[in-house]
């Protein structure tokens, strides 16, 4: 079976004429697509005209400002593969180049067999990214389910939401929106585990003993040791469809609207030790609503359709 693939597309910036010819012969001999420029000014011009799988930059021969240019490229295109060619191999120089956005380093004299392996790996990885992005473009509906138990209370900060991460990666949510959403889900799960499943009353947080410990914490500890409470689960369903992201968090308690203290009204009271979870959730999404006596919370976030257009050019 044969597989048709696009050849790597490379941009070389190198101030030395002989070196440019050597690289050119090497690229040409492998049938790769390439452009070669002599300095950072023409590098910037080439990048304005097109995109490349890989940039190879000789940081010495292309001029002293080349590292600065690499940093600017990295800031604009964080996923751009950049191989820096440097005559030195000191730790400090290497560190500076990596911090400037280099994804790999190449020392002179050039080991062309090693360079070929690196270019093939980068090209292969970029083709896979392009396939993933192309397939995700056609996803109009996606769902994922998560399940939490009381044992997860200790490390809820590590809650991972791949669906949200992908929406951030695709530019449909900003990093800040993604962070807020993750925290909103974390707050909802925490509410479900503590107020729902463990049936802890938020008013107990206000009852503080002289050693600084509160009644809420001691009751929480006792109920975590009681299988009747501790074995209950919280489920999370995330679904994305037509720019609408919906998160439904459901616990197995009786519901705080039955009289137990839950996230209350969600009004912001600076002095209260509770009630802020709902405020944080509300700030992350467009709508929050409760069902099943409070044992189910639905959060809805509308994604900006124009961001989708920018991401996909459609």
């Amino acid at each position, binding site marked *: 079976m044969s597989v048709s693939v696009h050849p790597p597309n490379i941009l070389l910036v190198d101030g030395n004429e002989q070196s440019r010819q050597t690289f050119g012969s090497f690229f040409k001999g492998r049938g790769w697509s390439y452009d070669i420029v002599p300095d950072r000014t023409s590098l910037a011009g080439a990048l304005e005209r097109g995109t490349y799988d890989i940039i190879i930059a000789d940081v010495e021969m292309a001029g002293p400002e080349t590292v600065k240019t690499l940093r600017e490229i990295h800031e604009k295109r964080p996923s751009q593969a950049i191989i820096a060619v440097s005559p030195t191999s000191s730790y400090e120089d290497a560190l500076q180049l990596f911090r400037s956005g280099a994804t790999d380093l190449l020392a002179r004299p050039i080991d062309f067999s090693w360079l070929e392996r690196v270019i093939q790996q980068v090209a292969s990885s970029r083709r896979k990214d392009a396939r993933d992005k192309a397939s995700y473009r056609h996803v109009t509906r996606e769902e994922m389910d998560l399940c939490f138990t009381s044992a997860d*209370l*200790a490390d809820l900060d590590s809650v991972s939401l791949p669906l949200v991460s992908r929406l951030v990666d695709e530019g449909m949510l900003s990093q800040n929106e993604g962070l807020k959403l993750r925290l909103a889900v974390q707050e909802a799960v925490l509410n479900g585990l503590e107020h729902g499943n463990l049936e802890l009353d938020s008013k107990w947080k206000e009852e*503080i003993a002289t050693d600084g410990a509160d009644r809420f914490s001691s009751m929480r500890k006792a109920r975590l040791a009681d299988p009747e409470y501790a074995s209950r689960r919280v489920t999370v369903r995330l679904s994305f469809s037509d720019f609408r992201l919906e998160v439904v968090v459901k616990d197995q308690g009786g519901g705080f609207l039955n009289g137990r203290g839950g996230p209350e009204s969600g009004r912001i009271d600076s*002095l209260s030790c509770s009630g*802020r979870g709902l*405020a944080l959730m509300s700030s992350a999404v467009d709508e929050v609503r409760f069902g099943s006596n409070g044992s189910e919370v639905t959060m809805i976030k509308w994604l900006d359709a124009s961001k989708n257009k920018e991401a996909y050019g459609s």
Partner: protein
Amino acid sequence: MEFPIQIEGEKGYIRVTSDLDTETAGEALRSAFNEVYDQGKRTIVLDLSGAQIINSYGIGKVLMCYKRLKAENGVLMVKPLDGFVKETFELLMLDKLLPVDES
């Protein structure tokens, strides 16, 4: 997890060196606060520059510190905030409650 404390004159400082979004971090704050409080300091400054994220759990712990000090006419202050932590304090109006220590 332990948060370092420092005493300077009448003030006690607590440097929060991790995100304030877990039980462990909350307990570290409570423990550091108790240590400063037990040395008789009633003006305590939280340096939250080491925290990028704070959730309702962390906020609850901060407010417990605030209340214990207020009960004895003390004051809980914060070093200048930034990023998500600042945004969260403003959202929950905690910036009106906790004065900023500019020293």
